[in-house]
């Protein structure tokens, strides 16, 4: 395309767009903002985000959290030094024994799927995959058509 034409077009469009005045914001907008601010101001400080807490409260909460973390670490370490920890771990292991059964079932299902694939052969599987792809494409196409029909500019 002619570079002079492009430059002229850019300048012309720029002129038209920059000449546009600002759009007028709805009159209720300022009231909406003020109402939201007032609503936020009514919320007690402890229910607001942590960044907006008073500095003293931020410092206090930080100290409490650090103390809690330290206590947990110390408690965990002391627990590991006693025999009760081994007993507790054994009990936790029992709770999760059900998971191994789920794992075994999954393994059996995978083995069955591999067996089916071997029996059917690649031709049948490829055909199934192609059919699934066509079905998916049809869904997207029909969805697009319906969307265009539903939201068509009238």
């Amino acid at each position, binding site marked *: 395309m002619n570079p002079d034409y492009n430059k*002229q077009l850019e300048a012309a469009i720029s002129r038209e767009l920059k000449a546009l005045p*600002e759009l*007028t914001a709805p009159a209720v907008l300022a009231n909406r903002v003020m109402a*939201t601010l007032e609503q936020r101001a009514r919320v007690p400080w402890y229910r607001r985000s942590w960044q*907006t807490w008073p500095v003293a409260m931020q410092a206090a909460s930080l100290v409490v959290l650090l103390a809690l973390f330290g206590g947990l670490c110390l408690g965990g370490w002391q627990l590991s030094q006693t025999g009760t920890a081994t007993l507790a771990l054994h009990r936790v292991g029992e709770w999760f024994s059900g998971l191994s059964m789920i794992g075994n079932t999954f393994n059996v299902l995978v083995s069955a799927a591999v067996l089916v694939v071997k029996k059917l052969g690649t031709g049948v599987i490829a055909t199934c995959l192609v059919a699934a792809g066509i079905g998916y494409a049809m869904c997207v196409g029909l969805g697009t058509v319906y*969307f265009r029909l539903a939201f068509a500019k009238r």
Partner: protein
Amino acid sequence: MRNYQNMVFSTAMRLLTNQSEAEDVTQEVFLRAYERFGELQGSPTVGGWLKTVATNLSLNHLSRYRSRWTFFSEIFTGDPDADGEPEMEFADESNAGEELEARDRHAVVEQALQKLPTAQRVPLVLYHLEGLRYEEIAGKLGVSLGKVKTDISRGREALRKKLRLTLELENNLTGNA
């Protein structure tokens, strides 16, 4: 707030083309400004800050809430001018005065801009109204530089057709032929 609300609303409206979404974005911009009231109060850059936040929030809004609909709405969109709407009779610089007696020039340009597909309108607004460079637009929209240039070029051409802008060069070429 009243000094800047039209500017912020215009920025959001031209990017989103949806009144209620633009109002939500404008509200969010001023709520964020209030959180930084201490920094912004009396600052000479407050206008620029508000505009940047409005632009970023509008683009976030577009990418977050509209991506799935954009896919459907633009997938089969060919020529944006082929929407069955009559072209707007205006903007031939020589007889613009006559046309303007019947129609508000700015309203027509605004309407033409809003009817552009999002993929063309957004980079066009960012370039011409927000003063961003091609590279900045590509970065903000997460698309290639080439796509930005192509979309802006197509957007300009679509606007030219919609507004029937007559360029001097075209006149010269026509005259020479």
